[in-house]
Structure formats: C-alpha cells, structure tokens
C-alpha cells in the first residue's frame, strides 16, 4: 500500500524540475564544447577522407541513410546537430527536440567510437532518459504545464521516472565497476593506483611518479576508490549518508580529473550527482548560498523562489 501511494505521488509533482533544467543546460554546453574542441579535427573524426576506418551508423542505416553518405556530408550533419543543441538549450521543441538530439548524439558516437569513454556512454543514456522528462520549467523560453490532468500526471511521472532511471543506472555503473575491480588482483591487493598513475597516457601531473611510488598513498587511494564504488549505490539512498558519499565521489572524480587527464568523463559523473537531490534541497542550498553572498558582498541577488515564478498552464492542452 505504501509503495502504491509512493508511485501515485510520483504523478503529482515534478520533484526534480530545477536540476533537470540545470542538467539540460549542462548537456548543451558540454556537447557544444566537445564539438568546438574537435573543430579542427572534424574531418578526421567524421569525414569520408579520414584515416579512421568507418563503422556503420546503426540508426541512420535503419532510416535508409547510408553511413558513407553521412560521412561525405558530415558538415551538414554537424550544423544540424549544433542547431538542435541550441533549440534544446532554449527549451524549444521540448521532448521532440530532446529525441532528435539523442538520435544525433547516438549517430555521432557511432561515426567515431574510438574517441569515446565511459562518460560519453553514460551521457548517451541520460540523454535517452531526458527525452521523457520535463526539463523546461527553468531556463527555457516558455515554461508551462499541461491543463489536461492526465497529461500533467503523465509528464510528472515521466520526469520523476527519468531521474529515477538516471540515478539507478548511475548506481548500477558503480556497482558493476566495483564488482569488476574486486575481481582484479591489483585492486584487491591495494596497488591499482600505482599502475593508473604510472601509465603515460594518463599521467596528468609531474607529481604522478612521486605519488605512485609512495606505498601509503597507493594503498589508501586504491581502497578509497573501491570503498566509494562499493558503498555509493547503497549509502546514497539514505539522507544521513547521502552528502558524505557524494562529497567522497566528487573528491574521487576530481582526483581522476587532475591526475589522470580524463576530463569530460569526470565532469559528467560529478554533474550527475545533482540528481540525487530534490528541488527543495536545491532550493534550500541555493537560498543559503545567495543569502551568504548578499550578506558578504552587500548585493541584492534574488533568492530561488523569487527568480522562478509559477509556471504557466498551457491554455489549449
């Protein structure tokens, strides 16, 4: 009965409207940043004359668009992709734009899968789930809610289930990652970070060699990684332990960011932590932060409730 009540409550309110909008903006900037960084190399990555051997793009092939056609006209594809990102950024076209963006992102990933990492893989799934979410209540040109009660309930359910899908998938990633690591001898014996810090491709700082030779650091950092990955999927669901385990996760990913030069991946993972907090929690945190800034700097920044008016109701729907 309690479970049924909980499931019904998911239809009553979009509990993550704020962070869904924040993440939508993040997705857009992240995708634009990636394209800008690749700008000079787009021909190598996606062009027909690249030295990279082409892999078939699954969805477009199903739609009757051959991979070689896409690669020959990749400039048009990238232009359309950037346009869709901008539309999504402003919340124009809503769910339909989100779906188009997901399909384009998936196609782009398949056009050159060699440059992908786990962060890109996670991002693909988040974008798929966000197709079903109403992430347009903030930072979009027109925020609104359905007048029709069934549609409104469906929209709220879609949003809440989208966030639940993201958080469940995220926990599953940590769980399986930890499971694989425990099976590996170097993780079990506490020496894995010696190897991760010493490999040339991931040697992010001149201090890596020094740290990798320090037995205490290697043991603690290896077990810290394991403990975070093992306990995160459990402790993040309890209010008392959530913040601690999230802070530990952020520390872990910042460490990887700095010392292993894996940038986009870590930012995506850190940003995903935000889905573990509801609107009320974000509101309380932001209001506290804004009050403190206002107090220190003697500014008059508006608090959370002030800058977000109640959403409009779509008249005709």
């Amino acid at each position, binding site marked *: 009965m309690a479970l049924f009540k909980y499931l019904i409550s998911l239809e009553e309110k979009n509990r993550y409207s704020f962070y869904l909008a924040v993440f939508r903006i993040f997705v857009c900037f992240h995708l634009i940043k990636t394209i800008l960084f690749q700008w000079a190399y787009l021909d190598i990555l996606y062009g027909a004359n690249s030295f990279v*051997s082409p892999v078939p793009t699954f969805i477009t092939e199903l739609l009757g668009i051959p991979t070689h056609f896409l690669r020959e006209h990749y400039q048009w594809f990238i232009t359309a992709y950037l346009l869709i990102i901008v539309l999504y950024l402003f919340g124009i076209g809503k769910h339909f734009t989100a779906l188009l963006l997901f399909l384009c992102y998936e196609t782009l990933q398949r056009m050159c899968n060699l440059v992908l990492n786990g962060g890109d893989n996670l991002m693909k799934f988040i974008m798929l789930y966000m197709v079903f979410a109403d992430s347009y209540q903030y930072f979009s040109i027109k925020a609104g809610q359905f007048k029709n009660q069934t549609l409104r309930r469906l929209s709220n359910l879609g949003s809440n289930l989208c966030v639940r899908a993201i958080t469940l998938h995220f926990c599953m990633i940590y769980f399986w990652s930890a*499971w694989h690591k425990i099976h590996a001898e170097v993780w079990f014996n506490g020496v894995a970070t010696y190897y991760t810090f010493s490999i*040339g*491709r991931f040697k992010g700082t001149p201090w890596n060699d020094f740290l990798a030779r320090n037995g205490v650091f290697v043991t603690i950092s290896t077990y810290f990684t394991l403990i975070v990955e093992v306990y995160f999927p459990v402790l993040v669901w309890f209010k008392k332990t959530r913040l601690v385990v999230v802070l530990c996760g952020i520390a872990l990913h910042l460490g990887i960011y700095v010392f292993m*030069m894996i940038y986009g991946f870590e930012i995506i993972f850190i940003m995903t932590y935000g889905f573990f907090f509801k609107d009320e929690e974000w509101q309380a945190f932001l209001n506290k932060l804004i009050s403190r800034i206002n107090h220190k700097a003697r500014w008059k920044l508006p608090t959370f409730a002030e800058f977000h008016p109640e959403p409009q109701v779509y008249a005709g729907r």
Partner: protein
Amino acid sequence: MNILRPIIYLAFISYFAATFLFTMPDNYINLQFYHQQQVFQQWLFQRWGFFAPPPNYDERLYYEFRDKLTHQSKTFEVMEPIVALKQQKAPFNWHEDIVDYLLSGSMTGIGDDLHDMRQDLIYRNKQAGKSATDTSGERMLRETIQHGISFQTLRNYAAIVAQKNRLDTARHEVRLILSHVMLPKFADRFSTKPRREEAYFISDYVTLNR
C-alpha cells in the same frame, strides 16, 4: 492513467532488469541469454569495468617503412611523442588527446581481438586434439586482424607518418609493430632496470593506402 500506469511501470522494470542482466560479468545465467545480450548491446552498448584491471604497460606503435626497390628500412615510433605532448599540454591537450584516443583505441581493439581469437583457436585446437597453436593458426589470426577496421585505421595513419617524414608513399611499403612496454611490478617500483618491451602484433608488409 489507470491503463497507462501498469504499462509504464512494467516497461521501466523490464528495461532495468534487462540492463542489469546484460551488463553483469559473464556468468551461467546471462550466458543463457547470449544472443539476446548481443542484440541488447548492439542497441544500447555499455561496459562499466573501468580500469579493472588497469593496464600495466605503455603502448608503442612502430611503423617500419621499407623501400620496395632497395629494401632499406626506416622505423618510427608514434605513441611516445604524442603521449609526451599530451602530458606537457595538459589540460589544454585536446589535439593530442584525440590522436591518442584514435591510435590507442585502435591498438586496444587489435589487442582485444587477438586475445579473443587466440582463445577461440586454443579451444578449437584442444577439441581437435592439437597441443599448441601452429603457424597456420597464427597466420590466420594475423590476416584476420589485417582485414579489421582497427588495423585499417592504423594503416591509413601510416601515410601521415610517411608524409611527415618525407617518405615517398608510392615507393615504400610498411609494417606495423604493436608492443607493450611493461611497467615494473609495484614491489619493483624503485628498480632502475630498463623496462621490458613485448611486441604483441607484427603485421605483414602492406602498401600505403593514401
């Protein structure tokens, strides 16, 4: 909503049950659904064993160019300079990062394919009563790899290496040597001995594509 609700929850639960099943390490249960797993991974590819285990080597990629007429050869290693630049320029190293991922990803692809095919070969030899892999088996592995996408990518890159080093692409053929420079074990981390290098794939001489 009364009709939609059970459909939505059923879809949600089924999707996550399938995701959980098809992303777990190989075991008796998920191997029963091997073909379904292949289909699932084709649509929703995911693999979450980050650095489990981490590599215990640095990769090296040698291009050995041989003059078709004189048979004189010149060898260039491409990974070490890229990785050194990537380290130097961090965090503003996106060019080196892209090239590193393209080459390293292809090398990893070849390494993984070799491992899988060799396991398969050993299994088939065992079934046939042979004690070890023979030379024909190794030749078959090499030829299969040389027809693969990863090898083609590295082979195409050879033309860029040749151009950079002012070698006539029409006059030269190239052989690829992929190797691992092993890290010393953690217990030997202060050792000053030179690191051991193991070649894991040596191709035939092939013509330069572009």
